[in-house]
């Protein structure tokens, strides 16, 4: 991938999960609310508004037939990028259920606000997930199912060394084998249950994974949790709500420490809220959080137990030229991300994507304009609340490419050193055919567009309808996305569909 750094990338469609035909109504519960790759990129997890978490894993070498197919397909498209991973469904589970807080008469949605992968240990996957109030730690483990061959052999039981213990049951009438411990199948399969035998045979080919809730970190937030972030020490994590940030130990679910509290004693004096918080990827003591006033504060947890005093404040001074009610709203930062090296911070507000250097707090080192064309329409956007839409951002593993979402299912990708106009724009489409009918360019929605073609594309687009550009139908917003940690692969969510693009 080295030769491709610091330049424009050719983006291609890779995969889609949950594809819809245009007529399909999306259930609100099916809408994806967060996407996250694990550290290795072998897994990607998706949370939705219905409180479910779906995990996809890379197809590994075993699945040869499938890979041949994709390879052939790829070779036609591009010879260079053969090695991008493809994913397949692994498992899904219900992480949160709708709840009702009787004390505050408050309904708590099951929607997964954020999820984060924890360091995996002993072969299991660990995921932290949160809704508005409660954080949960999930363990996803592959069931080890003994080879069906062992079960087929009738001699196995007799010749086993563990004659006593391998006997299926001392109580003759209890013939039901225990599946609570996956590897007990060998000791218990009874010919009365042929279906189970069949099931375990199948299980040889498909790993079955099951998820178990390990810990629940509850009752620590008065406001809605907007982000969680793991510390590089592998021991702690933070959870941020609108006004406070709490520090937890992964192993202790009954206490947390409040490290940042922005709640004024009188709520009428409230001027800003926390919108996002993230730990530095290397330095366990550094923590960044963004606010609705457009500040990014960097905090050193070594300085003090209560981190009200920030080490640095990143603030775009240019933004303070012409102040108005609307410009203050659009200044609100919706997402911040650290690159792997921790030198920069990427931030997204309503209008722009900004890259900050940790050594320069007066202005961003690069600003990519995303929604400049909406500036005249801010008033309309305010009236229908679209101005409060929160778009996420992400960076490539090398920290040189950045991506964010926009309306009309557009995915915008930029590179370090390139300007706002040099980025790529991709439309994450729900159904290729319907788009084809609408637009003359057959592959425009998938492949990247050079300046020229994008101009063309834009023209074509504008001719259809200007309103379409920021269609307020919430199904056409691309808000959640994540970048594969090692390769140029982006996963982005639109409605209930998850699209993968690679370069």
């Amino acid at each position: 991938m080295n030769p491709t750094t610091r330049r424009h990338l050719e983006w291609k469609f890779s995969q889609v999960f949950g594809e819809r035909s245009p007529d399909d109504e999306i259930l609100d519960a099916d809408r994806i609310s967060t996407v996250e790759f694990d550290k290795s990129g072998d897994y990607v997890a998706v949370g939705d508004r219905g409180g479910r978490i779906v995990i996809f894993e890379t197809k590994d070498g075993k699945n040869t037939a499938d890979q041949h197919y994709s390879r052939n397909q790829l070779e036609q498209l591009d010879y260079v990028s053969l090695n991008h991973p493809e994913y397949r469904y692994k498992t899904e589970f219900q992480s949160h259920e709708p709840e009702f807080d009787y004390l505050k008469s408050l309904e708590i949605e099951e929607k997964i606000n954020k999820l984060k992968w924890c360091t995996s240990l002993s072969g299991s996957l660990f995921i932290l997930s949160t809704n508005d109030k409660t954080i949960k730690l999930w363990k996803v483990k592959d069931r080890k199912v003994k080879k069906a061959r062992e079960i087929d052999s009738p001699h196995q039981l007799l010749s086993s060394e563990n004659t006593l213990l391998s006997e299926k049951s001392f109580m003759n009438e209890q013939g039901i084998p225990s599946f609570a411990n996956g590897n007990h199948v060998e000791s218990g399969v009874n010919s009365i249950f042929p279906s189970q035998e069949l099931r375990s045979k199948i299980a040889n080919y498909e790993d079955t994974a099951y998820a178990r809730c390990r810990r629940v970190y509850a009752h620590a937030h008065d406001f809605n949790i907007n982000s969680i972030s793991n510390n590089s020490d592998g021991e702690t994590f933070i959870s941020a709500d609108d006004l406070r940030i709490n520090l937890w130990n992964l192993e202790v679910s009954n206490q947390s420490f409040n490290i940042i509290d922005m709640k004024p004693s009188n709520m009428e004096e409230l001027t800003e809220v926390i919108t996002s918080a993230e730990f530095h990827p290397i330095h366990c003591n550094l923590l960044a959080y963004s606010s609705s006033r457009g500040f990014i504060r960097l905090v050193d947890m070594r300085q003090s137990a209560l981190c009200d005093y920030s080490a640095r404040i990143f603030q775009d001074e240019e933004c303070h030229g012409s102040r108005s009610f609307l410009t203050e709203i659009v200044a609100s930062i919706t997402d911040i991300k650290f690159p792997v090296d921790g030198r920069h911070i990427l931030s997204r507000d309503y209008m722009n994507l900004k890259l900050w250097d940790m050594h320069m707090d007066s202005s961003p080192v690069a600003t990519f304009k995303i929604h400049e064309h909406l500036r005249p329409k801010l008033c309309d956007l305010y009236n229908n609340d679209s101005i409060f839409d929160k778009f996420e951002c992400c960076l490539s593993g090398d920290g040189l490419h950045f991506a964010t979402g926009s309306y009309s299912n557009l995915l915008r990708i930029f590179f370090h050193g390139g300007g706002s106009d040099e980025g790529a724009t991709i439309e994450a489409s729900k159904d290729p055919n319907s788009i084809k009918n609408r637009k003359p360019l057959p592959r425009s929605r998938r492949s990247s567009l050079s300046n020229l073609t994008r101009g063309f594309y834009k023209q074509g687009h504008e001719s259809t309808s200007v309103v379409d550009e920021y269609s307020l139908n919430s199904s056409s917003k691309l808000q959640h996305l994540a970048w594969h940690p090692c390769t140029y692969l982006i996963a982005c969510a639109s409605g209930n569909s998850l699209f993968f693009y690679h370069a």
Partner: protein
Amino acid sequence: MSTVEAPLYPIAVLIDELKNDDIQLRLNSIRRLSTIARALGEDRTRSELIPFLSENNDDDDEVLLAMAEELGVFVPYVGGVEHAHVLLTPLETLCTVEETCVRDKAVESLCKIGSQMRENDLIERFTPLVKRLAAGEWFTARVSACGLFHIAYPSAPETLKTELRSIYGQLCQDDMPMVRRSAASNLWKFAGTVESAHLKADIMQMFEDLTQDDQDTVRLLAVEGCAALGKLLEPQDCAARILPVIVNFSQDKSWRVRYMVANQLYELCEALGPEPIRTDLLPAYVRLLRDNEAEVRIAAAGKVTKFCQILSPELAIQHILPCVKELSLDSSQHVRAALASVVMGMAPVLGKDATIEQLLPIFLSLLKDEFPDVRLNIISKLDQVNQVIGIDLLSQSLLPAIVELAEDRHWRVRLAIIEYIPLLANQLGVGFFDDKLGGLCMQWLQDKVYSIRDAAAKNLKHLAEEFGPDWAMQHIIPQVLEIANDSHYLHRMTLLRAISLLGPVMGSEITCSKLLPVVVNASKDRVPNIKFNVAKVLQSLISVVDQSVVEKTIRPCLVELSEDPDVDVRYFAVQGLQSIDQVTMSS
């Protein structure tokens, strides 16, 4: 299973339950693993039960935890120390599971077994296990490995010892911070088994690496062990190698590290001679007492008395006392509370003059603190000052403080002060108590909060014990008995509670003449709750009064209650009658 004989049947059930779907049954079965093993015999335990348990590593954490614990005491059931090594296999798997408490327990059990094993087995079985874990793919194995080196090391031959030291060195530089943390917190254990030459070279090198780790959490665990490590070294080596690290740490950028130093400094002083304490540790400690971070000051303030005890009084007055003055005015209430809980202990160290001159003003200002915990902490240690300066100097300021606490709007504060009343009574003496505090004790009996009323009743009992029945007869009983006419039934219930507590202290005579009539009278109360409490109190008084009184007064009353329309009253009355019968029969 025709071979299973009848006596083995319960065992068969237990074994069956090891595989049951219900976690509670599996847990029960694991808890009785030793019974199963005894029934199976040593051979079959070794050849069948242990291999079965080795595979059973995918269970719920609770079951695994129980298993890790049971296996630690399993040596007798597998045939004694010569077979102890068969237990290593299941425990090795448990050392790699993801749940920390299971791993810790497995390591603990392995250490228990390892310390019994024969030298030969340790070399051939235990050490390879340690090496396997240390090279484990998952960091959980490597974390567990760190806690086993001190068992494997002593019996290892020279070449193996070198290898073990180098493996431990690698663990100290592991990629995963969790492994480095484990290495840091186990270093002092391992160091205790290493020869002094290697201790100075290899171990100290590891220690120095850990103290320079990027991760705060690793550095602070290194501090935690340094006092223990220091005790292993000669004082001059300790001064040369550990002291600079500690002095450095006391100025670390991270408050968490400084906090740890503040907590550990005293222990470290014990390892060092008086000279380095004066020149290096005292300035470091004074810095910590004046730290920017309140948490650090809390930790440091909590050690102020201990630290003064190892210093000469002159040094304490010169260096520590000024800091204590500052801390007593600290902006953080928690710092002041931490100081208040120990500062009284400084009085004996400083002597009478310095205490009256310097400490007394501090006590007095803390006694007037706006934060109730601070005042409570001072009052709780009153006996220590009393020994040095006597109570007279304090009593003037003490009274307003106590009264204010007694009327605090937080019931937990009121509860805390009630619990100190017997101590105060003891220190202040009868005269002072009668004048000032007697009224308060009665007032609490009618508090809004049950816990306070209950504590107040217990308090009366303690006072009666403290000052004797005669005093109680004069100062407590009349006031208490007045409550019998209170219109509030909860207050009348408190009275019953107080009587049941006071009865045994006051003795048979006063109980019969004063207390019992009130109780009997209360049995005619219109509230059933009072009536069944009467039944309960009567039951408790059976053992206090004479047999004749029981028959003449208590029994008729209970009989009457046992015919009450209320079912609860009848229940407790019958219970009371039964215990009368029991007492009668046994005597």
